[in-house]
């Protein structure tokens, strides 16, 4: 059992006021809040051992390098990767996806096929469209049903010997659907295709085991898991990372350089050109420590409680329509009330100190599917409470009254 009141003390931002009201932060799917323990790690880095890593012989550089590499091992252990050099630091999920997409441009040819899901974030669609333009490969889409679940029989039909890569999010950011990635990975592998999974939305709620999943690539961002913005990770199987060419040129990623020829550094440095986000990487490790200390089972159980409670309360309000009612979903509720524009409700809720997301959530194809301009999205983390949900429901009723 989590002691939520104690946990809330770790998050200074949860105690501030917005528009004169106590903040209720329900925009966790966009970014999570940062506990003092993680903030302290960033402050400690800049206060005590800020230095460039991997090069200096001096003590500060050694300390910074050690902390950065220890964090990489924490990430490796968290995701149960076989080797720490299979963990590539990135600037975030989008960066990781682009790194893989760019790598595949040298491996694909005309006639090859890439499969993505209909539940994708924009950032998951555009790099593949660009990749197809560059290589002549074709993009196929796994459709979804009314509940927001992928139609797996359609996926089976899309797979064939031309399929080279399947790309799917573990959990949909707009609807909260948990996708059956185990099934997708197994089927894709049978067809001879590699699989990249976007874990941006899953990593705050569950602990993926990349070896058990047998996934080829897995990406996520630290800022969704109580870490800082601007840092994330790409897991890739060693064999795949060796196959992909470097993404960017620069310092760190080379072994030897002359004007005639440059040899690249080994993994993971081949993909880590330039000075990285050092404090971010170290804080990423601290954020995983924080989450693991609470325990992902306890987190999932409590967040599911919040989801069930909020769904029940919302459904009691006349005119509420919830989008995304998959059997397997996380603590994300996308909804509208009658034909009130989500933007109007979001604006009024903000006046009452409640932060929700409104709009198309960078998933316009999903909004087109439901023929709506957007939704209001409330997403919960383990530091949210049922009391907050009650206040949110009261505020929502008020907003609806004002706007009707």
């Amino acid at each position, binding site marked *: 059992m989590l002691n939520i009141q104690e946990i809330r003390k770790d998050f200074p931002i949860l105690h501030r006021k917005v528009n004169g009201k106590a903040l209720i932060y329900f925009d966790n799917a966009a970014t999570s809040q940062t506990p003092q323990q993680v903030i302290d790690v960033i402050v400690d880095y800049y206060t005590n051992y800020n230095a460039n890593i991997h090069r200096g012989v001096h003590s500060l550089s050694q300390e910074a390098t050690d902390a950065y590499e220890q964090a990489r091992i924490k990430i490796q252990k968290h995701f149960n990767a076989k080797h720490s050099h299979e963990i590539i630091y990135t600037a975030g999920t989008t960066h990781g996806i682009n790194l893989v997409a760019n790598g595949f441009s040298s491996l694909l040819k005309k006639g090859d096929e890439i499969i993505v899901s209909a539940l994708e974030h924009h950032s998951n669609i555009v790099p593949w469209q660009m990749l197809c333009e560059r290589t002549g490969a074709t993009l196929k889409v796994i459709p979804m049903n009314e509940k927001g679940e992928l139609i797996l029989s359609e996926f089976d039909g899309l797979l064939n010997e031309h399929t080279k890569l399947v790309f799917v999010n573990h959990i949909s950011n707009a609807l909260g659907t948990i996708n059956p990635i185990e099934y997708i990975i197994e089927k894709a592998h049978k067809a001879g295709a590699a699989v990249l999974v976007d874990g941006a939305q899953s990593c705050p709620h569950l602990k993926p085991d990349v070896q058990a999943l047998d996934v080829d690539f897995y990406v996520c961002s630290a800022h969704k898991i109580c870490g800082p913005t601007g840092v994330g990770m790409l897991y890739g199987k060693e064999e795949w990372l060796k196959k992909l060419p470097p993404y960017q040129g620069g310092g760190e990623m080379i072994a030897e350089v002359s004007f005639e020829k440059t040899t690249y550094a080994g993994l993971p440095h081949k993909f880590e050109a330039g000075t990285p986000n050092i404090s971010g990487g170290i804080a990423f490790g601290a954020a995983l420590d924080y989450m693991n200390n609470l325990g992902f089972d306890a987190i999932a159980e409590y967040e599911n409680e919040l989801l069930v409670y909020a769904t029940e309360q919302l459904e009691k309000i006349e005119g509420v329509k919830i989008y995304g009612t998959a059997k397997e979903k996380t603590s994300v509720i996308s909804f509208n009330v009658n034909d009130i524009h989500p933007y109007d409700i979001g604006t009024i809720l903000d006046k009452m100190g409640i932060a929700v997301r*409104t709009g198309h959530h960078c998933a316009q194809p999903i909004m087109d599917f439901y023929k709506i*301009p957007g939704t209001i999205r409330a997403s919960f983390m383990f530091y949210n409470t049922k009391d907050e949900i009650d206040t949110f429901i009261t505020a929502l009723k008020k907003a609806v009254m*004002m706007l009707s």
Partner: protein
Amino acid sequence: MTIQEVQEEIIDEFSMFEDWEERYQYMIDLGKSLPLIEDKYKTEDNIIKGCQSKVWVHADMVDDKVNFTADSDAIITKGIIAILIRVFSDQHPKDIIEANTDFIDKIGLKEHLSPTRANGLVSMIKQLKMYAIAYQTQLN
């Protein structure tokens, strides 16, 4: 009335509201009463690109004065447009171009001026002024 006078009148009206609720309720009511733009003007060309709510604006000029009609699919945005139209409609293009918009701050809607706001109040004002500039060129 001059633009300045209309603005002062609006500031006066808003000064009677005691809290955000009354202010927003007033804007919502304004939004509901906004004369709708004729359907033929609700075209892609007349959309002011904003992230979340759609805004259509149409302008014409009669007797050297510019008139605006507008609509939005979000009601608060519509209320804000109603206020802007009241300020800028039936005015000489030159006066529209030269008008400042400090009154928005004074009626407690400053937050809507932030570039991150999805309703694009800033781009709305810009668009109204663009129309005025175009009509001013015609008059010259």
